[in-house]
């Protein structure tokens, strides 16, 4: 019994400093290659807490009863791990964007000096290659007119990339 109590005490001691490590920063979140400035709390490794309002602003994802959703896409948050994703802040509900990235198998690159987090392609965005369907994209021509790859359905497409290096 004594040993069990000591083990619990050790866990509390370990969790205490980790929770306190999260510091307030002005962070840049680059999501879908669009940069957004937000206030965040972070421990630089597994936690990047932002308000749910900033979640929408930076990612267009929204916290809903059924999960984290954008348009028709919804990722349910595992109920048993809800505290890893959502918590009540002093003025707003906070969402841990790094826990979400891990959930959706999304690579994240971080620059500590500039408090910048770059979020890469989620697993659902990489499924195009696995299914062998050509991943769709929208890009401008020289006149700024946007073109969608899928607009060319019904025709064969030779997609060639080049650079002027």
């Amino acid at each position: 019994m004594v040993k069990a109590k000591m083990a619990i005490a050790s866990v509390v001691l370990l969790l205490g400093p980790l929770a306190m490590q999260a510091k307030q920063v002005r962070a840049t979140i680059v999501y879908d290659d669009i940069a957004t400035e937000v206030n965040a709390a972070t421990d630089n490794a597994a936690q990047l807490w932002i308000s749910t309002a900033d979640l929408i602003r930076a990612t267009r994802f929204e916290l809903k009863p059924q999960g984290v959703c954008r348009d028709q896409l919804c990722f349910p948050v595992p109920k048993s791990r809800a505290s890893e994703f959502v918590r009540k802040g002093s003025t707003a509900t906070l969402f841990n964007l790094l826990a979400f990235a891990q959930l959706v198998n999304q690579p994240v690159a971080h620059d500590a000096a500039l408090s910048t987090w770059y979020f890469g392609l989620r697993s659902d965005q990489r499924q195009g290659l696995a299914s062998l369907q050509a991943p769709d994209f929208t890009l401008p021509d020289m006149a700024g007119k946007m073109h969608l790859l899928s607009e060319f359905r019904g025709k064969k497409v030779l997609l060639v990339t080049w650079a002027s290096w």
Partner: protein
Amino acid sequence: MKDAGPWITAAKPTYTALIDEKHLVSKLYNMVNVPTGVWINEEGKIVRPNEVAFVDDRFKTFTGLDSEPYLTALKDWVEKGDKSAYAMGEERLREKLSVNDPNFILAAAQFGLGEHLYKSGHLTEAIPHFKEAQRLNPKSWNYKRQAYALSDAKRDYGTTFADEVQKSGGSKVYYPPPDLPGATGSVDKRP
């Protein structure tokens, strides 16, 4: 636009030419060099993935690659569609697309961060991320060439494009030739 624009204007293309400042296509398709070509059929399905796609011989002295076999293959596919011998089977397509290499996936994020920092005026801070992208995906010439083009390669990376080409075995292996059935050097006879 500033860099590629003059080339597009001079070429007066009859096809659609798009500007991809953030290397989105490269990221979506796991491309590692230019020129890279992908064949996509009428249903939007890939039938030949990422391969060197020269459509003329202007770099033949450097690459040793003749564009004729690739053009012949392309014309065959245009005529015969998925029945063309040059349209690949699904097994080979998946192998060549390197769908789920976690290092490549992370490399793309590091490269994206480097690009963002550079465009925000932080070249010095971008360099470690470009280097990390190159380490995670050493096969990507795009990561090397883009990073070298943005700074002094010798000073910031201790190398140059020419040095790297030599290290890889020289200009004749810098571009692996398209893996075309019946072509010299074809390594796989599967459809």
